[in-house]
């Protein structure tokens, strides 16, 4: 097998809005807000983890092209003498899409085997803009955005490294997959619209890719009512309930609120943020749209129940769209504290799983993996494997 030459570009602000509970990271105001709240992007850590695993799994692979400074060079542990560094284009304190595009242009010119980027849907769009709809250089994303709808991503940094270790470009070839993104400002107002921007070639290894997110399919009112009954039986009234994003949890909660919770709580959940419900006196109070620190403070020293539903079509339970659930929280939890909801149809679309966790800390992921019971209705569960992404 010949040496695999790759280009690496990191979007150093990717996903910064995630733990801050800001739903996405597009736009400078949002980024400033997240920084002001004391959060930082995980992109550098994710890039470093990718390189660490790649070195072990594919010693022959080499980074031929890298972005300057925080755009990739900073995470290279050693070597660097054979690497072509692409200078930054942006002059300001903050990096820009033009930086990503400059690395991609250099990668095309150098005819690398694959462009690896660390970022989210926005970064994928920047690459598509430079490469064009007819570009043939394969691309592989290391998921570092908030909730990725595009199909160009591996499931985790480690999976990306494993994928490249077993992928031979001449033998295996590529797939063309979709680049999609949502309108984040509309999303913050509760309107979720996904737009297809084009397609990019990715290594032909579909099992190690996370796949595109399927459109939301809120459970029908019958199944939402059934799931609400099942959830009610599982909830501990004394516990802090951490309620994940997505239409399944939201609709089931609405049914629960109509019935059992009617006198205690009337708030609807936010569609895309993590909310917390705390015991308070005889009833409960809901704190909508909590960021990671708020969640960790509210749950410290108390019984916690996480109510989650996997991302449709991708199967991610933790690490997509809910980066507010940081390893700092998860390390105190066990499988018994997870309440997972899904309709049978949603599980069907996942072909029976597995479900994935990609919290950002491998030890936390591994502590929660194994077989879990997913509630699919009153008195019915599905046994699903939860794996590290």
């Amino acid at each position, binding site marked *: 097998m010949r040496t695999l030459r790759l280009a690496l570009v990191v979007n150093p602000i990717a996903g910064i809005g995630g733990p801050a509970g800001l739903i996405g990271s597009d736009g400078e105001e949002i980024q400033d807000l997240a920084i002001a709240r004391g959060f930082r992007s995980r992109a550098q850590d994710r890039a470093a983890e990718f390189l660490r695993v790649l070195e072990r799994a594919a010693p022959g692979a080499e980074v031929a092209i890298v972005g300057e400074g925080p755009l990739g060079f900073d995470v290279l542990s050693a070597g660097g003498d054979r690497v072509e560094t692409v200078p930054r284009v942006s002059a300001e304190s903050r990096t820009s899409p033009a930086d990503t595009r400059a690395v991609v242009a250099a990668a095309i010119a150098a005819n690398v085997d694959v462009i690896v980027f660390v970022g989210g849907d926005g970064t994928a769009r920047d690459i598509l803009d430079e490469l064009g709809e007819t570009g043939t250089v394969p691309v592989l994303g290391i998921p570092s955005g908030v909730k990725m709808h595009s199909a160009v991503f591996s499931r985790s940094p480690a999976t990306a490294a494993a994928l490249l270790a077993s992928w031979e470009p001449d033998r295996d070839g590529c797939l063309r997959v979709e680049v999609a993104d949502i309108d984040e400002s509309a999303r913050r107002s509760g309107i979720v619209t996904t737009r297809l921007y084009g397609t990019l070639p990715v290594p032909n290894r579909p099992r190690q890719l996370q796949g595109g997110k399927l459109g939301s399919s809120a459970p029908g009112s019958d199944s939402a009512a059934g799931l609400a009954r099942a959830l009610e039986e599982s909830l501990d009234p004394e516990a802090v309930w951490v309620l994940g994003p997505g239409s399944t949890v939201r609709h089931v909660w609405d049914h629960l609120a109509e019935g059992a919770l009617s006198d205690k709580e009337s708030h609807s959940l936010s569609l895309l943020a993590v909310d917390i419900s705390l015991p308070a006196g005889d009833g409960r109070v809901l704190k909508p749209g909590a960021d990671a620190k708020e969640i960790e403070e509210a749950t410290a020293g108390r019984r916690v129940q996480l109510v989650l539903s996997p991302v449709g079509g991708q199967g991610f339970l933790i690490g997509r769209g809910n980066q507010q659930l940081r390893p700092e929280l998860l390390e105190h939890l066990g499988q018994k504290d997870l309440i997972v909801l899904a309709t049978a149809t949603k599980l069907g679309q996942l072909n*029976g799983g597995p479900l994935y966790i990609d919290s950002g800390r491998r030890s936390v992921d591994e502590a929660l993996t194994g*077989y879990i019971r997913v509630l699919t209705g009153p008195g019915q569960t*599905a046994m699903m494997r939860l794996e590290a992404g």
Partner: protein
Amino acid sequence: MTVTESTDTDRTARPKRSGADAATAPAGAGLPAWSPEKTGLRSYHAPRWDEPLIHALSTPGQRGMLVPAPMAALPDRAPEAAVRRDTPVELPEIAQPQVLRHFLRLSQETLGADLNVDIGQGTCTMKYSPKINERFAGSPLSVGTHPRQAAETVQGTLQILSELQDCLAEVSGMDAISLQAGSGSAAIFGNASIVRAYHADRGEGDTRDEVITTIYSHPSNAATAKTLGYKVITLYPDENGFPDLEALRSAVSERTAALFITNPEDTGIFNPRITEYVEAVHEVGGLCVYDQANANGLLGIARAREAGFDLCHFNLHKTFSTPHACGGPAAGAIGARSHLSQFLPGPRIERVDGMYRFAEADPCAIADIRPGHGVIPNLIRAYVWIRALGAQGLREVSDIAVLNNNYALAKMLEIPGVEAPYAPSKHRVEQVRYSWQGLTDDTGVSSGELGQRMADYGFHYWTSHHPYIVPEPLTLEPTESYSRAEIDEYVNTLADIAAEARTDPETIHSSPLRSSIHTVDQDATTDPDTWATSWRAYRRKYLAESFTAPPRWTPAEDLPMRERAPKAHHR
């Protein structure tokens, strides 16, 4: 007549030739001219009648027969008096020939198993029901008897039931058979009831409250267990298409009442590790129930006993050829190992001193699944079918069914856009669940729409149970009843439609175009408010007539109401 060689390109080319033009055969073959391999698609159009409901055909004073007058001297306390109506029934008044024409027209608008090459209703084993068996089932010696008739006067019928029990015991390896259930799901319900009775008998009825099943097993397994109050745990397939064995091992516990499982499942892949599943459940004290509703690939090849199962059931209208009869009555046979035989429902036949009689039901037997014994006409049909074939014949049935299926599989996989998920390049048992995902991605035409288009050629087509696990599914089961030419015709038609999806998807979206009806509103078919299963309901719902509501049972206020399962659209 000249010989024309037609190629694949010809077959998929449009516009199609008419059936008559293309009716060719090798010169001098001396065979009927028609060959589906050579002639492409059928020129077909379903009859379409604007036939009204039979009540609308009623003409006052018409009648089909003269009914004898009631006995004048009927005693007041006769049972008939208690149920006699004060007002006449509003039956349509219509003569025999009009009745005949009415129902014949309606039947022409359907695609029955006797009319179409019915390999498209996978899992249901749509095989030929030999017509001669109707003569036995309809014999006055059977239909002229009464369920309560003394055993010594129906020895022939009892002999048939007894020997059918023996045959099914041999086929399954089980120790005892009950023939009472009137359908497959009723038999599964019987099995779930036996599971409950068994654990209750051992004092574990309260602790063992979980039943495990698989997503590719028939939904009735989960449904009957839930009906009996069990919590149901569903296993999903692993990457090979088998129920995830490790998931099962994680699921079993002292709360496990039973595993309900099919093998092969709807994918048609035989699970070679089935005994490991059984052992995992037995280790925790649970029972193992084998759903053999469809055992058509296993006759004389594999038995429930050797796989270690405690209970099993057969649908006699699938494997054993009795008609499906538009939703029944059917027949389900339950098989039990000796440690469970005392729980079997209904009368079983035993032979004492050369005479057949109904055995006394054991005190711990579960409640009757239906009144009396089973559906005798179907039990006779199944018995005759088994006896006509014999042991070797049964084995041959499965051999041919498996061969036909794998022939169809090989032909299907030549069609671009279809695949058979799991077990690549392996043979399947009696059926295959295919996926049209590739074609759907390329053309936007769904599997359900391909089925609509198949109706334009006189074929039935079914996708899969819900939820769809295999995307854009199609389930084919050719059984042993169809000739190679018929399988070719079905698959060639499907290939042509798949090609049409690439060139003219709009035609498929708007199909069926030559069937007795066009598309139906899916939401309406799953909404009970639109259903009218009686003339009265039709008048109430569609003609806005009002009726005084008959007295109805009302639940006690504190009765917990069950959640309804979500609606699912078939296709």
